[in-house]
């Protein structure tokens, strides 16, 4: 066995027994996680994304030793998460946005003191660390107030402090900013980034706020129905899924020539109430310049230009749709997983300045072999 400083997940599977009808009905197994492989190194924030029911929380609970896997292995710094659970628990902690995880009839300070005892934090360290953590989450002023008098956001902030009380080597974050005010959520993101960058903490993050994932995560795994769909940096995922920038160009005096210019790029056109026309083009490259120039050269007057960057949300939705299609397809027991090679996000310059013919690839055609190859998409399991 080789000693590694990372969380290594191999072939992870989790089946839950469920009864369809009452407590005496036949018991069936529901597969929540199906053959996942993950690598979560120290010093990096790794994202785990998917739609509801994708298996994210189940995966995190297995990594936190709360659930036992049905098959596969989870190793944390070489320690088995099942056989060496107690040693693993000293190295990890979990912050779950949807769960309270603190005692309401204790003060914030008392909560941190008690959890410090459970993690065997030395007395002198605990006193200092409690103060630092309360300060970090902005609860110093309410440290001696009972938690039942806290707002939901304050309780969540205390739960975050609880998750850091043992200075974990690996921090598992399941929707950590759920219900937090924007400034506190921003501060938490800063803390998480600092933990990874300066303390070398390995962080696994699930969040429905994809901007948060995009800001923090160096690497993202996308899963659907418990299965691996894709992985890569947020930029790589966006590029590989054909998640396009959207250019919206308003032409105040549209003519046949301007329409032809727009059509040559494969853009859609929409007549506006004032007689103008809205030209919309979605493309992975930066096509705002060429499109504007073409319309302008065709004699059109530009009334407005709006460029919307490709979003990670689009990429996830595309991947999830592909995953569902793969699951629904005949004989497709497992959807093709996608690994995006490092560097794929910096798509070839020629793609960005592609000729108008290239732009006629319809949005969502990311599964086309030629485009997949151009974006560095590799079929098969990671």
């Amino acid at each position: 066995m080789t000693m590694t400083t990372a969380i290594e997940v191999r072939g992870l599977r989790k089946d839950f027994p469920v009864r369809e009808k009452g407590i005496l009905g036949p018991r069936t197994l529901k597969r929540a996680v199906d053959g996942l492989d993950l690598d979560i190194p120290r010093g990096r924030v790794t994202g785990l994304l998917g739609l509801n029911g994708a298996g994210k929380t189940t995966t995190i609970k297995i990594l936190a030793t709360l659930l036992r896997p049905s098959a596969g292995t989870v190793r944390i710094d070489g320690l088995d998460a099942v056989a060496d659970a107690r040693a693993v628990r000293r190295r990890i902690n979990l912050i779950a946005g949807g769960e309270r995880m603190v005692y309401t009839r204790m003060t914030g300070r008392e909560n941190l003191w008690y959890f410090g005892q459970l993690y065997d934090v030395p007395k002198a360290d605990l006193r200092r660390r409690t103060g630092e953590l309360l300060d970090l989450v902005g609860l110093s002023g309410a440290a001696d107030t009972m938690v039942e008098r806290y707002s939901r956001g304050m309780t969540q902030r205390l739960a975050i402090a609880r998750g850091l009380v043992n200075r974990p080597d690996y921090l598992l974050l399941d929707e950590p900013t759920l219900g937090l005010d924007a400034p506190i959520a921003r501060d938490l993101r800063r803390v998480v980034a600092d933990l990874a960058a300066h303390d070398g903490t390995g962080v696994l993050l699930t969040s429905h706020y994809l901007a948060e994932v995009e800001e923090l995560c160096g690497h993202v795994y996308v899963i659907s129905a418990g299965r691996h769909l894709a992985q890569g940096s947020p930029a790589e995922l966006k590029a590989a899924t054909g998640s396009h920038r959207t250019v919206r160009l308003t032409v105040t005096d549209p003519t046949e020539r301007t329409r032809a210019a727009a059509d040559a790029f494969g853009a859609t056109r929409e007549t506006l109430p004032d007689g103008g026309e809205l030209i919309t083009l979605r493309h992975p490259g930066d096509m705002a310049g060429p499109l504007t120039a073409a319309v302008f050269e065709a004699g059109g007057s530009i009334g407005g230009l709006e460029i919307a960057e490709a979003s990670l949300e689009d990429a996830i939705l595309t991947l999830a749709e592909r995953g569902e299609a793969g699951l629904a397809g005949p004989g497709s027991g497992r959807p093709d997983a996608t690994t995006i090679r490092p560097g794929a996000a910096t798509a070839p310059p020629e793609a960005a300045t592609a000729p108008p013919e290239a732009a006629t690839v319809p949005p969502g055609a990311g599964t086309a072999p030629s485009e997949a190859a151009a974006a560095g998409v590799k079929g098969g399991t990671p």
Partner: protein
Amino acid sequence: MPIAWATAWRTWQMTRRAYPWTYAVGTVLPAALTIALAHLGFHVIGGGAVGDDFAAGSGTTAYLAYIVVGTTAFHFAVRLILWSAKALITEQRQGTLGALLIAPAGRLPYLLGFTGFAVLSSVLEFLTLGLVVAALGITVPVSSVPGALLGALALIAAVFALSVGLGGLMIAAGEAHISQNTVFIMLGLVGGFTFPRDYLPEPVRWFAELLPTTSAMDVLHGSFTGGQSLPELLPRLAVCAALTCAHLFLGLTCLPRAEARAVERTY
């Protein structure tokens, strides 16, 4: 034992804040009423005398003293079970079970801390029963003070051992009322608290022997109203110790599975 101490302190603080001191009245009242009703029945119906079968089974004719010891012990056991066995399901209900389970702390010191708090608070509550007993003019003889102390410790340990397994059952099933009340009824019926087990059918008596509380009660009754000395009590103490260890081992072995089941049930 920092975890046990921290848990006892934490539970003390939380309970103090959650319940007014008058809550203890509700705890002691059922035991006081049981003793008062036994007093009434003994004098009004029984004419102040016990039958030969009771004397033969219990080893005493001091019926009311027997009832005082048995009732106090039974309600004390119920209180301990309500605290110790329900510790984990209470964590589950208040949303803190996950935070507890992912911590590296062992479950045994945690449960010991809970029980330590429960013993302290229950002893304080049940000391007030002495006032009721004194008001009714009941005297409780003690034949062996060391035996009585060891019997009390044996009862606490026996109830703790039963509570560990019961606590696991509660979180696995996600249910407390049916399981706890089943245990209370079972203990009250077969445990030899308030009447001699000779009244029970033979198979039930053997079943009762599997519970560590039964031998603990034999020690308690023997050292108060049974007129037994410490050496005479030691064999039953040994049985109690062995059964306590067996139940504790079984409970602690099954607890991780029960905890996993509890998490799976709410996935």
